[in-house]
């Protein structure tokens, strides 16, 4: 490489560096498959091979497109469409060659995020018996409990309000998938804390 060539490469490389850094900030925070390391580390470790996608028997894992910036080609889960069903043997995690997904032995090791209920939208809090999320949760009475109390200024009806325990909830999104309210859904997953992005 001659002098000019080296110079050109350095300038080109620097421009690419700045551009890519911008794109990295733009990679938005999404629900990653179980066992994903924190977002920055995940983006570094995932080789975008798609094996986790192919391994999931429920087709829950999607591959990110260009709207995800540098997350293009990385796996994510759209819980409303199909959540993580918390397979006993975690085939997605088993399939990952790079340890981008790792450290899961049992369901409670999963930490994809935490469910958040919008009390203004949730019909249970309006006085209707619903409890769908509560009954569908694989960690029933641990991750999600019912808060039962008399409806204020109403002596006949009671509220059976679901309450999340953020310590126990693994963020699988099954509750989101099953929620009977639409537009907006009354429960959603706040993805696990993403390093540097929150």
């Amino acid at each position, binding site marked *: *490489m001659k002098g000019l*060539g080296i110079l050109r*490469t350095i300038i*080109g*490389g620097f421009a*690419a*560096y700045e551009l*890519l*850094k911008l794109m*990295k900030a733009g990679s938005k925070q999404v629900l990653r498959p179980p066992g994903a390391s924190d977002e*920055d*580390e995940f*983006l*570094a*470790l*995932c*080789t*975008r*091979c*798609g*094996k986790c*996608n*192919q*391994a*999931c*028997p429920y*087709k829950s894992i*999607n*591959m*990110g*497109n*260009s709207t995800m910036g*540098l997350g*293009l*080609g990385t796996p994510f889960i759209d819980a409303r469409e199909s959540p993580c069903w918390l397979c006993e043997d975690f*085939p997605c995690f*088993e*399939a990952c*060659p*790079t*340890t981008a997904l790792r450290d899961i032995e049992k369901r409670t090791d999963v930490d994809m995020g935490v469910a958040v209920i919008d009390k203004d939208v949730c019909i249970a809090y309006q006085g209707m018996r619903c409890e769908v999320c509560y009954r569908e949760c694989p960690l029933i009475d641990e991750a999600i409990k019912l808060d039962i109390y008399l409806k204020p200024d109403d002596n006949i009806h009671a509220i059976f309000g679901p309450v999340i325990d953020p310590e126990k909830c693994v963020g699988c999104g099954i509750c989101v998938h099953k929620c009977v309210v639409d537009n907006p859904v009354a429960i959603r997953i706040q993805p696990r804390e993403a390093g540097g992005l929150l």
Partner: protein
Amino acid sequence: MKKWLIARKLVQFFIILLFLSPLFLVEVAGTNFFYGTLSSSEIFGIQLSDPLGALSVTLASKKIVWGFLGSALIVFLFYLVISGRVFCSWVCPVNTLLELTDSLRKRFKKLPDVQFNLNIKIQIAVLVLVLSFFIGVPIFEIISPIGNTLRNLLFVWGIGSFILLAIVLFDFFVSKRGWCRYFCPVGGFYSSIGKAGQLRVKIDNEKCVSCMQCKKVCFSHPSILDPAINGDKTYVTSGDCSLCGACIDACSHEALSIGLRPYRQKEYQIEITNEVKGEKL
């Protein structure tokens, strides 16, 4: 008969079939004998990964994952022994696509063919690794047309397809086989280890009449055949040769063959030049 062409088309076809097999054999990976993409795959329980991708991930994450590196080492050693760019003409699905583009291109005589330096792709490969390290993301895995072709076939149509389109248009309107010849970092990576390969295109100078038929069809670049035709070398030394065999098929004087690299090289006067000579064939 175009023996090498037929052999290669068959291999290319089976490679694509192999990658698509999880779609029509069993839908869930792990139960199929094969699954994965060219970034990383598993065949009969053996993990195989792309060496450049594995290097990028290691540099980006600054973590050594031995199993992953081992799976890339298998692939790396295979191409190191055979010849680097064998990957390009026999395995890579982007090349399969661009060969179609090239055959379409042949029907239009007046298309320009801009030439670049053959070493650019090696520089890009180095750049990809350096940038991966500093940004902390395996850059080429994201934009790679190879990855994106497989994503489109296996996962959902439309991921990164604009990159593919750009490359096809570039090859068609600007530069013949331009992406593979000059820019692809995977090609650059394999080209850089190509010289070590034990299989080479050999020339019998007694039979060669310098008709230049071979140069017209060369996948990599016509200039890489020059030292052999000129009699400076007894085989194609350039790391860019992909052992596609097209030159052998094209040579009606049967001067070319693929065989083990000769131990002793004839004395030579001219160092093989990678600079493009601007010839148009």
